């Protein structure tokens, strides 16, 4: 058997964020145009190709929603339109820029209209391990 060893420089206990629904959730801010949101809850979802956030965040940041490249995102419950915008994401004591898809809907958890950290923009920036029994997420940033 081959053993793989990884090390993680950050750990986050997400238990307090999931008292009402099962899920792996972290808090992030989004920034663009010299404006930053307050802390937002975002679900960590490797099943999502993109980071997806509600349109209200794009409007709050002063982004021209329709100016970004348009995507049609397919989910288990249907399809929705989104536009890609480059924003700075802050998580714990890390930040990075990434392309985020801002959906046509406003965030409304616990419906499927919720803010998500997916593959492009999050998982391609961190090595991620989840210990769900202990409600811990471990992160190793890609600094290069």
């Amino acid at each position, binding site marked *: 058997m081959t053993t793989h060893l990884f090390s993680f420089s950050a750990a986050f206990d997400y238990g307090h*964020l999931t008292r009402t629904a099962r899920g792996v959730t972290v*808090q992030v801010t989004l920034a663009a145009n010299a404006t930053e949101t*307050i802390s937002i809850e975002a679900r960590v979802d490797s099943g999502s190709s993109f980071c997806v956030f509600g349109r209200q965040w794009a409007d709050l940041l002063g982004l021209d929603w329709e100016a970004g490249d348009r995507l049609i995102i397919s989910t288990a419950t249907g399809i929705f339109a989104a536009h890609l915008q480059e924003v700075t994401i802050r998580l*714990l004591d890390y*930040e*990075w820029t990434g392309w985020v898809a801002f959906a046509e809907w406003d*965030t409304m*958890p616990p419906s499927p209209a919720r803010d998500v950290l997916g593959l492009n923009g999050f998982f*391609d920036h961190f090595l991620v391990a989840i210990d769900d029994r202990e409600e811990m997420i471990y992160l190793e940033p890609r600094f290069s």
Partner: protein
Amino acid sequence: MTTKAFTGSPVRKAARPLPDHKQDWAWINEHLDELRGLWVIVNHGHLVATNPNIRQLFDKLSRDAYPDAMITYVPTEEEARRVVL
């Protein structure tokens, strides 16, 4: 559009870490029943604003007044019973 691409910049240390919000969550948990069905903004363990509509919530606030605040939605009891996909 590629299906797999490293997009954006590499990760860097933030100039200012995100607050941990433990104090804010403690306040929310103490007031859970009165907050159900509302978006809630909490700052340093104190309520800033609530509204069932997230846009109306921000309409009332000065954007830069609470940089360390957090926002969450507290589901109704019925919503909280749903299993989320």
